[in-house]
Every structure is written in structure tokens, then in C-alpha cells.
């Protein structure tokens, strides 16, 4: 049972119980009261009867006294107390006791009769003084009169008494009935109270048990929660630890990156100073003093010059690499067709010398750093020409495709569209197993005669690709050709 329903039921039961108990109590009081009233009436009735008896007795006594005198002529009988006073007393008692209207009428009649009788008796008693009274007819008339009076009064009294007796009987039965009722009600109250008490107890007991269950459940849950909390805290702590580790590593990484960047920049920049001077003095010596050297000296001089030249290239590449960043460069809308144009322009001489053919599909517009994109194109195209087959005219085809990254190539984000720009050449290619190595700094797979490269070009190209949010990958079939694929995010 739902707890809200339980509450409603319990309230209904409680209210009903109170109402019932109150009603029963009221009934009990009522019955008791009625019984009391009835008993009072019965008591009063007995008092009335008693009074009536007294009246009759008094009257009778007077009459007897008169009779006694009449019989004995003894004056002693006449000296009894007056009749009137006790009679009046009883009449007034009766007056106060009687409220029944019939009975009151009876009482009135009684009083009349009594008055009449007393008058008679009084006039009789006067006549008693006469000696000749007892022989006269008056005496017999008086006797008969007196008898009739007495009978009439007696009759009245009897009538009244009967009435009272009936009433008394009725009332007594009534009182008994009320007593029985009261007793029944009392018992009912007790039983009902006991039932309510038992129900209440049962109910409370159930509730207490339920409460106890809930408390137990709560405790169990609480201890489970405490356990889980502890686990969470532990997990938190390890997470926190890992976090600090990560932060430390991050900080270190940043430091290394900055150090490396400054190192590269500083060394390549600062070291160009003495390098430039070396070159300069070499050129002066070559111009003015070379002929003063011996043949061997001149050979050595040439070696110095070549090595210095190589060093120069290395420094330029290193400088380029360190400067290829996005931090202080503006990102703008760049038309790749334009970039290709500038590339072809810069490589004009090389292209002409090698008869290279470069074709391209229309290229898209992207967001990026123009000079870096030019550098990328230049590098890839010049590489393609450089690594041409000996007796084949180098051909480079540039194509574009808009792709979404399902291939999960490393470095690309899912859910973004990229342009894949393929630079396909018919050069000597490379072993597929070197596909990643060629992008490492200073890695060169072959030394070429006309190679000006120091092996850093592709590393820079890849860095540029990453700067632009994309990647650069390569694939190849040896002796067939290579494809360099440059992925750059679509610009909306």
C-alpha cells in the first residue's frame, strides 16, 4: 500500500474511532442520566405513597379516637393531638412531590374530601359534648357519614396509590432498561476501545518495522555510497597524479620545443656570420691570391670552397626549417593556382634545362601562409624533376580530390573534409619501405650529381603541411614513379 494511502486510511480509522467512542460515551451518559431520573421518580413515588399512608393513618386514628370515645365515653380519646397539623404537613409534602397532572387533580380532590371529612369530624366532635348525643339518630347519621367520608378518602388514596404504583413499576422497568443499555454500551465501548487499541498497535508495529527496514536499507546504501566515494577519491587521486605527470611532461616538452627552436634559430643565424666571412675571404683569395698557390694548394683550396658551400646550404636549410612556424605568420586566403604559378616561375630555369612537363588540374583556394605553401610546392616539384629517370623527360601531374577522412591517416581529424593534392611524377621512385624515412631530416636515399638539396627539404615540406592542419605522405613504385600527397583542410 502506498504510504500516502496508508496515511489517509489511518486518519479515517482514527477519526471514525474517535467519533464512535464519543458517541458511545455520550450514549452511556444519557442512559445513566435516564436511569437516574427514573430511579428518582421511583423514589419519589415511594415517598408519595408513604405520605398518603400517613394521611390515611392520621385520619383513621382520629376516627378511631372518636369511635373510642363514642364507645367508652372516655374523654381521654378526645385529647389527642390536633389532626390538622400533621395532615397539612403531609399535604404540603404531597404537593411538592406530585407533578403528574392527573395525580395533581387527584390530590385536589383528595384535599376537598379531606377538608369535608375533617369538617364532619370536627362538627361531630362538637356534638360529642352533648350527653344525649349517643342516643340520638344524629349519632348514627354521623357514624355513617364518617364512614362514608372515610371510605371516599380511602378510595381516593387507594386510587392515588395505585397510580403511583403503576407509575413506579413502569419507571422501575425503565430504569432497569436504561441500566442494561448503559451496561451494554459500556461493554461495547470497552470492546471497541480494545479493538482500536489492538489495530493501532498492529498498525504502529507495522510502521515501526517498515521504518526499521528503511533505516537498515539506508544504512546499507550509505555504506555502499561511502565505499564508492572512497573508490572515486582514489580514482581522483590517481587521475590527479597522472595529471601532474602530464603537466610535468607537457612543461618539459614545451621547454624542449622552445629550446630546440631557439637553438636551431640561433645556431643557424649566428653561425652564418663566420660562415659568410669564410666565404667572403675565400672569394677574395680566389680572386687575388689563387694563382700564388701550388697546384696541390689550389686543389685543397677547391675542396675548402666546396665544403664551405655545402655548409652554407646546410645552414640555409636549418634556418628555413626553424623559421617554418605559424606563430608570427599571417594566415590568409591563398589561391593554390597562384602558388603553382610562382613555383613554376622560380623553377623556370631548372624546368627549361630539363625539359620538364608540369600539368595541373585547377587547384582550390585554401587558408594558409603563402610563402610556406610556395616553398612546399617548390620543394616537391624540384624534387620530382631532380629524381627523374636518366633518359626520360620528367612529367609531373598535379591533381586534386576532396576527401573525407575514413582512412584514418595519422594526423588527420575525423569529420573534416580535406583536399588531397597529388604530385605524380615518372621519376625513379623509391622503395615503399622508405616512404616515411624520406621525410626525416638529413635523410637522402641517393646522392645525385646535381643535387643541391641537403636532405632537409621534405622535412620542411611536411612541417609546412602540418602547420596548415594537414599532412604530407608519399608512395612510390621503384622505376615507375612517385606520388606525393598533400592533405590540406577544406576552407569554408
Amino acid at each position, binding site marked *: 500500500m502506498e504510504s500516502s494511502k496508508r496515511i489517509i486510511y489511518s486518519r479515517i480509522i482514527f477519526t471514525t474511532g474517535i467519533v464512535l467512542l464519543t458517541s458511545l460515551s455520550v450514549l452511556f451518559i444519557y442512559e445513566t442520566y435516564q436511569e437516574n431520573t427514573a430511579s428518582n421518580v421511583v423514589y419519589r413515588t415511594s415517598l408519595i405513597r408513604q405520605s398518603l399512608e400517613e394521611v390515611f393513618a392520621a385520619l383513621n386514628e382520629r376516627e378511631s379516637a372518636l369511635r373510642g370515645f363514642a364507645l367508652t365515653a372516655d374523654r381521654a380519646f378526645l385529647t389527642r393531638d390536633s389532626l390538622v397539623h400533621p395532615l397539612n404537613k403531609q399535604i404540603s409534602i404531597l404537593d411538592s412531590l406530585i407533578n403528574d397532572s392527573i395525580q395533581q387533580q387527584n390530590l385536589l380532590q383528595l384535599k376537598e374530601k379531606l377538608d369535608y371529612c375533617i369538617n364532619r369530624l370536627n362538627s361531630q366532635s362538637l356534638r360529642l359534648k352533648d350527653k344525649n348525643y349517643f342516643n340520638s339518630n344524629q349519632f348514627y347519621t354521623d357514624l355513617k357519614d364518617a364512614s362514608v367520608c372515610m371510605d371516599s378518602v380511602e378510595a381516593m388514596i387507594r386510587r392515588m396509590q395505585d397510580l403511583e404504583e403503576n407509575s413506579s413499576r413502569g419507571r422501575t422497568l425503565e430504569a432497569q432498561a436504561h441500566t442494561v443499555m448503559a451496561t451494554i454500551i459500556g461493554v461495547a465501548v470497552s470492546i471497541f476501545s480494545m479493538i482500536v487499541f489492538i489495530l493501532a498497535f498492529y498498525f504502529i508495529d507495522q510502521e515501526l518495522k517498515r521504518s526499521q527496514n528503511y533505516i537498515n536499507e539506508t544504512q546499507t546504501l550509505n555504506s555502499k555510497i561511502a565505499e564508492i566515494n572512497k573508490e572515486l577519491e582514489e580514482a581522483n587521486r590517481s587521475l590527479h597524479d597522472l595529471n601532474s605527470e602530464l603537466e610535468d611532461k607537457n612543461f618539459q616538452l614545451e621547454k624542449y620545443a622552445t629550446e630546440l627552436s631557439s637553438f636551431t634559430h640561433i645556431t643557424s*643565424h649566428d653561425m652564418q656570420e663566420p660562415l659568410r666571412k669564410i*666565404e*667572403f675571404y675565400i*672569394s677574395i683569395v680566389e680572386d687575388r691570391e689563387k694563382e700564388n698557390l701550388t697546384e696541390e694548394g689550389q686543389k685543397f683550396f677547391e675542396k675548402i670552397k666546396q665544403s664551405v658551400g655545402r655548409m652554407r646550404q646546410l645552414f640555409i636549410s636549418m634556418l628555413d626549417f626553424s623559421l617554418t612556424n605559424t606563430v608570427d605568420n599571417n594566415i590568409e586566403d591563398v589561391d593554390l593556382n597562384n602558388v603553382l604559378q610562382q613555383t613554376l616561375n622560380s623553377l623556370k630555369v631548372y624546368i627549361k634545362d630539363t625539359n620538364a612537363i608540369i600539368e595541373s588540374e585547377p587547384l582550390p583556394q585554401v587558408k594558409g601562409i603563402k610563402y610556406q605553401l610556395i616553398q612546399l610546392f617548390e620543394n616537391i616539384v624540384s624534387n620530382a624533376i631532380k629524381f627523374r629517370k636518366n633518359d626520360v623527360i620528367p612529367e609531373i601531374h598535379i591533381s586534386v580530390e576532396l576527401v573525407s577522412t575514413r582512412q584514418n591517416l595519422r594526423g588527420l581529424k575525423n569529420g573534416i573534409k580535406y583536399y588531397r593534392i597529388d604530385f605524380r611524377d615518372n621519376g625513379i621512385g623509391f622503395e615503399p619501405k622508405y616512404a616515411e624515412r624520406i621525410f626525416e631530416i638529413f635523410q637522402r636515399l641517393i646522392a645525385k650529381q646535381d643535387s643541391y638539396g641537403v636532405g632537409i627539404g621534405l622535412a620542411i615540406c611536411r612541417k609546412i603541411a602540418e602547420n596548415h592542419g594537414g599532412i604530407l605522405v608519399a608512395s612510390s613504385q621503384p622505376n615507375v614513379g612517385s606520388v606525393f600527397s598533400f592533405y590540406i583542410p577544406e576552407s569554408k
Partner: protein
Amino acid sequence: MTKDIIHKVILLADDDLDDAEMFADVLAEIDSTVELYHVPDGFAVFEWLKNPANPVPDIIFLDINMPQITGWQCLSSLKADELTKDIPVLIYSTSSHHKDKQTAIDLGATAFITKPSDYKILEDFLTAIVNELHNKDIASIIRRLSNSLHLE
């Protein structure tokens, strides 16, 4: 002023003695009548210019990496001063970064030259410059020169 009108004057500001020596050497080879004055830093440039005994240079070669004040600051001050803003200033630096070239133009330099690593290139350049030192159009001449000689 006791300055001989025929004499050409070049002021070179560079803290590197070797570079200054090379410059003087090559210049002497080309035309020994050109007066070359060398100061070691930016402050010295102003001191030299303020001195009334010194002739007004026809051109100033200004290095960037100098002690105390940089070549950039020196350039800005030169172009801000009424007396000096019309003197052509050539930024003459070891850097080859195109951003520095842009900064030079923005600050009012006539051109930005990377110090050449070949003696002959320097020779050709200075020869051409010296010939045009009194030409009013020297600014555009220098620019054309620096382009063609790949000195930028």
C-alpha cells in the same frame, strides 16, 4: 663648409671590424677618392652626424645587430630627424629573412641589402653605388641593383 663637392661620403655603421675592413678594402679598390667613415654603433652615428666638422654623408650603410641601440631604432630616429631624414639609408645586414626586408622598407630605408658572401658581388654593387652617389634618383637605382644582384 670646407667640403669638396667632388668628394663622395659614405658613412658605415657596423660593430664588426672585419666587415668594416672588407668594405673599406673593396671601396678603396673601386674609388679611393670616396671618403668612408666608420662608426661602431647607433649612438656613434648620431654623434658623428651632429658634429659640424663632419661632412654630410651621401649614403649611410646601417647594420642591424649592433650594441646599445639596434639598427631599426637608429633608422627610425634618422628618419624622424629633419636634418637627417633625406639621407638615403641602406640596411646592410647578415639576415636574409624577407620579414626584415619588409621592416626596413616600412621604417623608411632606401633598401635592404644582405651582406654578400662573395667578394665579387660586393665589388660590383659598390662600383654601381659609387657611380650614382650624387644622383638624385639613387633610391630606385639601388633597389634595381639589389634585385638583380640577388642581394635581397
